[in-house]
């Protein structure tokens, strides 16, 4: 039976649908942005006013803020699917579960990416970082990191959405796996904001890309097992 539309077309529809829903509930989006702003400010209070220290650790704070925000946005991404069993409805339409995975990963990633861009001017204000040093690579790091959080995040979010104690289940499962991503993203970000004498930034970018590709592939293979019963 040939499917009515291609996998990419279906993924695109899923992505657009998520964007539509995000737009319609944009108050929630605003709340996540302000939550992240508060988190960044909290770090300043926790670390104290020494600008040199703050500037040096700014990449870490930025990525931690994104990580915490991702728990909220990933959780929401599947809450809308479990309301009315909408995900099952999609699968029965029929929509290929793999298409749902691709659409949802890039939906979540785009949200995190936009959030990270919004937070950039805040990091300038709070931590006095210099964005002009290597802006293109910085944007690339933010994008790759967002995808890296979303790929395993989408799978774990689908699992937690139906489990008990779902609020704690998602970060409990997701954070250990994201540790290497955090290391790579923070290091790569650091070297777009500060001098890079050993030219490390490209190696960290490669590690980020490898992480993304590995988790996109593994997620692509395994998501159908989570989206429907077997």
């Amino acid at each position: 039976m040939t499917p009515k539309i291609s996998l990419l077309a279906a993924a695109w529809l899923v992505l657009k649908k998520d964007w539509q829903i995000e737009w319609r509930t944009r108050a929630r989006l605003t709340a996540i942005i302000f939550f992240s702003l508060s988190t960044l400010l909290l770090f300043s209070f926790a670390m104290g006013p020494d600008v040199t220290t703050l500037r040096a650790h700014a990449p870490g704070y930025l990525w931690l803020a994104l990580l915490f925000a991702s728990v909220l946005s990933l959780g929401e991404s599947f809450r809308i699917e479990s309301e009315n069993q909408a995900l099952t409805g999609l699968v029965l339409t029929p929509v290929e579960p793999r298409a749902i995975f691709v659409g949802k990963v890039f939906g979540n990633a785009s949200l995190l990416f936009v959030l990270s861009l919004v937070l950039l001017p805040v990091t300038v204000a709070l931590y006095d970082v210099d964005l002009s040093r290597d802006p293109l690579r910085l944007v690339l790091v933010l994008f790759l990191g967002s995808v890296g959080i979303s790929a395993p995040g989408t799978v774990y979010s689908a699992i937690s959405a139906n489990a008990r104690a779902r609020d704690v289940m998602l970060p409990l499962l997701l954070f250990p796996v994201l540790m290497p991503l955090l290391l790579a993203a923070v290091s790569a970000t650091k070297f777009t904001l500060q001098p890079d004498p050993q030219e490390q930034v490209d190696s960290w970018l490669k590690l980020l890309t490898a992480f993304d590709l590995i988790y996109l592939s593994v997620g692509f293979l395994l998501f159908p097992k989570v989206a429907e019963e077997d």
Partner: protein
Amino acid sequence: MPPFVPLTLLALVVAAIIAHVASPKVRPWLWKPVAALGAVMLVALWYLGLVWAPPEQFMSDVGRILYVHVPHVWMALIAFTLNVGCAVAYLMKKSWVTDALAESAAEVGVYFGAVGVSMGSIWARPTWGVWWDWDPRLISTTVMLLAYVGYLALRSFTEDPERRATWSAVAAILSYVALPIVWFSVRWWNSLHQVQSSPSTVDKPMVQVLRWGAVTMLCFLYVFVVKRYEIARPRQTAAIELPPLGLPRPEAA
């Protein structure tokens, strides 16, 4: 002890676990000689580690904890690998045996991992002055440990047996895939910062004791996994019986 012995024994242990799981004939008796061997080797290890082995050049007597710390970490990684093997096997062909073995391997792995990492911390404190060591093996084991605590939590929070098996298998694979990534990124980060890596014990007698410790722990790994499997299996049997063919007899009116 010749160098190939621990690896051969590892292969034997994995084969023995599979034999235990697959063959009811082997089950009642095989674990007993292995447990006995492990117990004897453990006693010998105390002597070998605390008395026989020479004190290490830089770490003196504190370094002796390595003889149990390192094998514990290895056992944790072996157990987690066994778990992920079962996870992949389960997703390819559903079987309660595979699922029970996965659960057992995960729990045993968390035990060895927790003990191993704590020992590592105890060792690091007098050696480096800090409670932590940014070593690829230690960090990878810790990340795996946290991931598998999440795995066990997921299992306990999922009531439906089929869902529990499928979802935890997916979670296991996602977590395990992080292992090489963590390993590599920590090693890369260390090489950039010229961090002192854990000194490897190169002294001949110390390597011998380490191997002895590894074999001892292998015996315990085997016993723990199969015994835990024997607890997991009956819990599942109750779940897989089909309902009876006819209707239950109606109560007398």
